[in-house]
């Protein structure tokens, strides 16, 4: 197992390098001029040019590239083109909020989604199944930002139950959770739809498996078949797949953060794209890449642990 783990870890290093290069290439093509963005509408051409020089935008592109990769190796993500602050500081502030939101949404998704999936699988092709499936399809058809806006409008403005913006400080758990609730629910509901659907299909597969049939044939009560055999068998793929959902969640969280004015990587990314702050955009993509590669690695390892056949 240790060898397998090391192998996997070693494999992720060239992947990361490739991703970093890809990111660098894509981001440098973004149109627009950060110098003008920084100076605003009153600045003269000279001032813009002076700032370009100071920002290092006039350096040859390969110098910028080696600076970038070299910086990453030293754990330096560069400085924001707009504020000159180290980007890493900003990410350090934003990341926990995004992780918190993603974890909360995944939990909501698992707690609501798994029962929905099991029930719809058991009662497949009945009225319950149809309702459940249509609802979960509706859930994943819902644009995250729209659900967020509706929740905001009703829960915060109409009924005043939750704050509409920002995030609570981590030092104040009650306030923190209060701020987290609505964004987590809006993402969590969508997540419920995904997990519900996946659970249903995994369960259907398992219910058709030979060992479940055998268990049934042995005359075990249906609930015992379900709980002891089918669900247990289904649980492994479900939990492992939670990793993949975590990744997709990071994507959906972007708009949720924007709608709720919540600090986080996604909002930072959208903001930086608007500002043409490509150092920051690039750094956020790097962080996303690291997170994603890490989650994938973890999923791989868990699989290897659970299912020895994977360790080729």
């Amino acid at each position, binding site marked *: 197992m240790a060898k397998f783990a090391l192998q996997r870890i070693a494999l992720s290093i060239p992947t990361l390098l490739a991703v970093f290069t890809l990111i660098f290439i894509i981001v440098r093509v973004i149109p627009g001029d950060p110098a003008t963005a*920084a*100076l605003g509408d*009153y600045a003269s051409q*000279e001032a813009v040019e002076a700032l370009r020089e100071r920002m290092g935008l006039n350096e040859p592109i390969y110098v910028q590239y080696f600076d970038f990769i070299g910086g990453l190796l030293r754990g330096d993500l560069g400085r924001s083109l707009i504020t000159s602050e180290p980007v890493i500081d900003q990410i350090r502030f934003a990341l926990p909020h995004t992780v918190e939101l993603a974890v909360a949404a995944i939990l909501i998704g698992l707690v609501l989604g798994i029962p929905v999936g099991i029930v719809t699988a058991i009662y497949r092709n009945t009225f319950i199944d149809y309702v459940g499936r249509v609802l979960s399809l509706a859930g994943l058809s819902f644009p995250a930002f729209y659900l967020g806006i509706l929740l905001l409008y009703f829960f915060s403005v109409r009924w005043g139950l939750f704050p509409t913006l920002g995030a609570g400080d981590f030092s104040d758990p009650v306030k923190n959770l209060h701020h987290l609730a609505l964004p987590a629910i809006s993402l969590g509901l969508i997540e419920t739809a995904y997990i519900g659907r996946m659970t249903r299909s995994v369960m259907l597969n398992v219910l058709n498996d030979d060992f479940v049939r055998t268990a049934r044939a042995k005359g075990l009560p249906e609930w015992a078949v379900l709980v002891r055999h089918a669900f247990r068998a289904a649980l492994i793929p479900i939990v492992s797949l939670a990793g993949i959902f975590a990744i997709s969640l990071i994507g959906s969280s972007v708009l949720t953060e924007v709608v709720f004015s919540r600090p986080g990587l996604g909002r930072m990314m959208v903001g930086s794209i608007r500002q*043409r702050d490509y150092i920051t955009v690039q750094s956020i993509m790097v962080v996303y890449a690291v997170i994603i590669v890490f989650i994938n690695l973890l999923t791989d390892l868990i699989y290897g642990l659970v299912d020895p056949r994977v360790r080729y």
Partner: protein
Amino acid sequence: MSQKPEGGVSELLAGALEGRFSRREVMRRAMALGLSAPIIASILAACGDDDDDDDDTGGDDAPTATQAETDDAETPEPDEDDGAGDDEDGDDEGEAPPADRPILRFGLNAGDLGNLDPHFATSTNDRTVVDMIFNALIRYKPGDSSEFEPDLATEIPEPEMEGDKQVWTFKLREGVMWHPGPQTESYELTADDVVYSLEKSANTETSAYAAEYEGMTFEKVDDYTVRIILDTPLSPLLFLPKVANYSGGFIVSQKAVEAMGSDAIKTHPVGTGPFRFQNYTPQNTIELVAWDDYFRGAPKLGGVTLRFMPDPSSRELALQSGELDVAFGLPEATWVDRINGIDGLKADVMGVGEVAFFSFDISREPLADERVRKAIAYAINRESHLALFGAPVAELVYSVVPDQLMVGGLSKEEAEEAGVAYHYDPDQARQLLEEAGAENISFELVASEFDSYRRMYEVLQAELSEIGIDVSINIVDHPTYHSLIREASNVIVIYQAFRPNPDAYFSQFFHSDSIIVTGPSPNTNFAHYDRVDDLIEQARVETDADAQIELWKQINIKILEDMAAMPILFINQVYGRSEKVDYGHELVSSLALYPQITELTTIDS
């Protein structure tokens, strides 16, 4: 003095110029006419040279005189000490810690800050923050930028001539303390800081406004006296804004800037204002705390938290749910009505109005043909554009220099008389196109995603399609828009801006020096217009106010005759607030484009 109030602006102006009215009378009548905006300053400043003796106080200058009359709040610290007994903020020594005082929460219309170095701060949001942190030699009266009053200086001086040079001597207040910075202790402001700061403003490396300080030298006389020497004399109307609390006029701390370097002050501003910079979380908040050693007295607020909220609906929702005390609004009458209809909320509409106009690139096809430009002008229906914003948020203008806001602009009647009003007339437009032999005209325009820009572009698009001109619109974000239009991306550019006087409008938008890309100092002359250079320069140095105004009007007419630009309207500033917020001053107009928050601002609990 027997004139009826309906006599209007021009009459009032004439009266003021002839010295028939005292300054106070001008002020009062101007207010009665609803002329709250900088026009009053313009009127006063325009006649500033020759009628000192009109004032009851004799040698005193105008702003001080009006100040004494209209407010007691703004007076310097001795008064503050006297009257402080009834307030909880007490005195210099025993002031309450900020925690006991309310924090004002302010929603900004931006995703992040740009630059808090006041000499680079250009966006409305950056200006908002900078305005609370810094002071200047003189300031626009809070909430009413039509008046100047002393700020760091003890009074507004009169210029003196020394040979062919003009000299302005400023006496500084004593005991003004700098905020402590990340690397500097609090210390007393002296002439060194002022000279250093103004020299920084005049340097292209360290300021976006260097061009405005060309031909000026700055001298320290003693610790509390500074002389500013101008190679070419300027009227107060043109000079005073350069040392006021706007753009390059803000005074920064020499020690703090030198200690931190010019990059660090972008995010660590150190000033002398009522609020001290404490904390900045990118794309989230800026936190300011009360500076209790402020020379006008300790602020009544404990601090100000500014939140970056580019999404207008989130700002509105947060205002409604009580999570914001003040928020940047939408420049729409419907929004104003909506907010005013909500219990506990109030929408304020105030100056200064930003003029929105279309620049036509006269150097490029298809607009090189004057008939095509005029056809487009006739196809534009000002009323359609006005309806996007609605009264009282926007008002129509008939020259790029807004007649309602300052001298030198054209009123509707004046424009009609000169034959340059360009009222909506699609038939005339089609006929002009036909005469020009222009068929199947189509072009692409880049538009900003800012609603006020985007909507005007989209209305223009529909209007031009009516006369057979096919426009495709490419929406980009706001900074990109500004970058692209400066690279001549558009044959028609919509620009929305307030400039403090006609000279600034003309120099930046219609002088050949400012022609984008190819001009000697490219600025915002998108029209590539070069036919009024002489007139602009002539007007700039004209010291007779009457003649100056006449020249400015001529320039406006010429621009319209050549149809280099089509003026549409100006848009006022709109902010929403909780009714509990009391800014501590009347809200008439603010050059800083936000309802200024000062040491007197409070929130009732």
